[in-house]
């Protein structure tokens, strides 16, 4: 069953009703950093949450303005000790401060999803759900004195069955410019989105659908991974990790990060606790040519007055490695015989590029993954065999600012799975975003499985932040 003209009209009607209702809400409230600096969301975002070059510099600077001065901070913090105490350390507690207002922000997402999929019997299954709300995020972020900062996100999500999930998606402490030249050595510790994805994470958040092919591919399978992970499967890369990370910017344009984190399976893309005694390692390095420096430096470059525009190219390489020793996954062969499998060495190597040309931003990642898979007896856990499987995934996305309130986005994803008997996963994602106000946006998004014309979703989304 396809969506009829009648259904489409009905959806458009309800979306229009929704927009009218929410458009009537006052848009005076703005999130934590807007309050602290008394500035608009547009200072850092193209259309939230996608960051513009200044916003990226603000983020990398530990959520401080580049070359911040006291006059830029409109909400004066509460002093926890006078400056003079610095010289008296360790005889006295080192001075710090904290935000004068509780730095909370709320992001609410309403979504109407019209989804079509083909079930195992070949029949098309269609749902049309008002998921009002679909997700509510409570953010807390700010600085603690001149060196420390914090970022937290508590997400409440409503499941299609009416239940709900609550998760701490981020909880981390930042140490900014810990020592050495400014911007060069920073640390983050906690549950966080690794800077391994710096520069493209906020960009994909621009769309309603995440890049599942990159983050939720399950490499576990009798002949290697066959598709995206269900609950408890192994994953390609962790979207979030429990990590200790060092990162920095050198000479305004060279970015690096190295980190150590808990293993990537089987807790899903958001990481897990203590799957084994191992730790994963990751690293990334890249360079930005043209445009604003990654630390906000504008020396020697002529930037257009529109803060979402620039002409720049950022390219980098990234890697991730780990050992899934003692983490057992249940699998079966073609005859239904049960086995255990361990991913004894997973390696991921990738390249990243982001090209800004005025209103256009094209970016993408190509990732090659290998997994040394040990097949074990289901009962005795004696090793039966060991094979190394590989997969490749890449995506390319183009975002275009039509006018400041309007942006269009198209993304293509391709995943060659490890099991050679299974065809590649190919997906198309098209998005149109409308910024109704600086902190209210609507999106119309179409996602299509290019292998099967009956697998698609059409989502209308309303988000507001305060």
């Amino acid at each position, binding site marked *: 069953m396809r969506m009829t003209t009648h259904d489409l009209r009905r959806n458009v009607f309800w979306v229009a009703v929704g927009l009218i209702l929410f458009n009537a809400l006052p848009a005076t409230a703005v999130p934590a950093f807007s309050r602290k600096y008394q500035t608009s969301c547009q200072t850092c975002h193209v259309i939230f949450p996608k960051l513009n070059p200044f916003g990226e510099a603000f983020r990398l600077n530990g959520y401080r303005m580049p070359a911040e001065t006291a*006059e830029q901070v409109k909400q004066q913090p509460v*002093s926890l*000790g006078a400056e*003079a105490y610095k*010289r008296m350390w360790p005889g*006295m507690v080192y*001075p710090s401060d904290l935000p004068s207002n509780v730095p909370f922000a709320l992001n609410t997402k309403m979504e109407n999803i019209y989804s079509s999929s083909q079930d195992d019997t070949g029949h098309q299954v269609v749902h049309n759900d008002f998921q009002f709300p679909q997700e509510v995020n409570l953010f807390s972020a700010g600085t603690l004195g001149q060196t420390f900062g914090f970022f937290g996100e508590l997400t409440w999500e409503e499941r299609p069955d009416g239940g709900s999930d609550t998760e701490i998606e981020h909880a981390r402490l930042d140490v900014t410019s810990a020592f050495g030249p400014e911007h060069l050595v920073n640390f983050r510790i906690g549950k966080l989105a690794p800077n391994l994805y710096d520069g493209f994470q906020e960009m994909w958040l621009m769309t309603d659908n995440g890049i599942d092919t990159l983050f939720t591919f399950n490499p576990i399978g009798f002949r290697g991974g066959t598709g995206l992970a269900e609950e408890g499967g192994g994953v390609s890369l962790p979207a979030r990790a429990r990590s200790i990370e060092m990162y920095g910017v050198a000479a305004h344009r060279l970015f690096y990060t190295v980190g150590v984190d808990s293993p990537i399976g089987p807790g899903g893309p958001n990481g897990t606790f203590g799957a084994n005694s191992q730790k994963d390692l990751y690293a990334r390095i890249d360079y930005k040519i043209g445009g604003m420096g990654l630390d906000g430096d504008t020396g020697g470059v002529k930037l257009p007055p529109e803060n979402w525009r620039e002409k720049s190219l950022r390219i980098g390489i990234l890697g991730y490695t780990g050992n899934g020793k003692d983490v057992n996954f249940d699998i079966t062969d073609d005859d239904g015989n049960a086995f255990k499998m361990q991913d004894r060495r997973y390696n991921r190597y990738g390249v990243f590029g982001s090209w800004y040309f005025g209103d256009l931003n094209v970016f993408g990642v190509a990732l090659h993954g290998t997994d040394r898979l040990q097949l074990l007896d289901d009962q005795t856990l004696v090793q039966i065999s060991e094979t190394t499987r590989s997969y490749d995934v890449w995506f390319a996305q183009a975002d275009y600012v039509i006018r400041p309130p309007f942006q269009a986005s198209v993304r293509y994803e391709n995943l060659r799975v490890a099991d050679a008997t299974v065809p590649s996963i190919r997906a198309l994602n098209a998005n149109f975003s409308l910024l109704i106000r600086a902190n209210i946006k609507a999106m119309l998004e179409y996602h299509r499985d290019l292998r099967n014309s009956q697998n698609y979703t059409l989502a209308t989304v309303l988000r507001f932040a305060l």
Partner: protein
Amino acid sequence: MKRFLCGVLFALATVPLLAGGIHGRVACAGQSDNGGAVVYVAKVPGKTFPPPKDHATMDQSNRVFLPHVLPVLVGTTVDFTNADPYLHNVFSPEACADKFNLGTYPKGEKRSHTFRKECFAPVLCIVHPEMEAFLAVLPTPYFGVTKPDGSYDVRDVPDGSYTVKVWHPKLKGSEKSVAVHGATEADFQIAR
């Protein structure tokens, strides 16, 4: 005769306006306002200044030192009073201020310290670590503190050429030569 008397009265009335002094503005880059900068004459050749008999006063009220910046002449005794209904302490970690510590004392009590050396000393309260003030102990009695708009007024400076300096608790200081003839204007800019 009336004209003569009027002339004398006018002359007397305008004497304070025409008295020597330095005034102007200090722009403090990057600060929320331009207040708290000390402008002072660094030296008057061939002249020394005995310490004043009168004490200066710095109060503690609502967990704030008042004033936030207090300039005094070398040798001045400063009385630190406590107007709050709870205990306060006054001390300075600065060696040039003898690292004085006046102890902890209740409302209504005052304790004093004499500042015998040129110094820019933070004044702290160990009971309330967020409290901070500054003593500027200066070589001449010719000084002033900027208001939030940056304006200052150093009064009664004799005519002559002087080095005038600016000090700020958070910014790098500045100095310039100023030839004082009556009311003389001098502006400064300071930054981090």
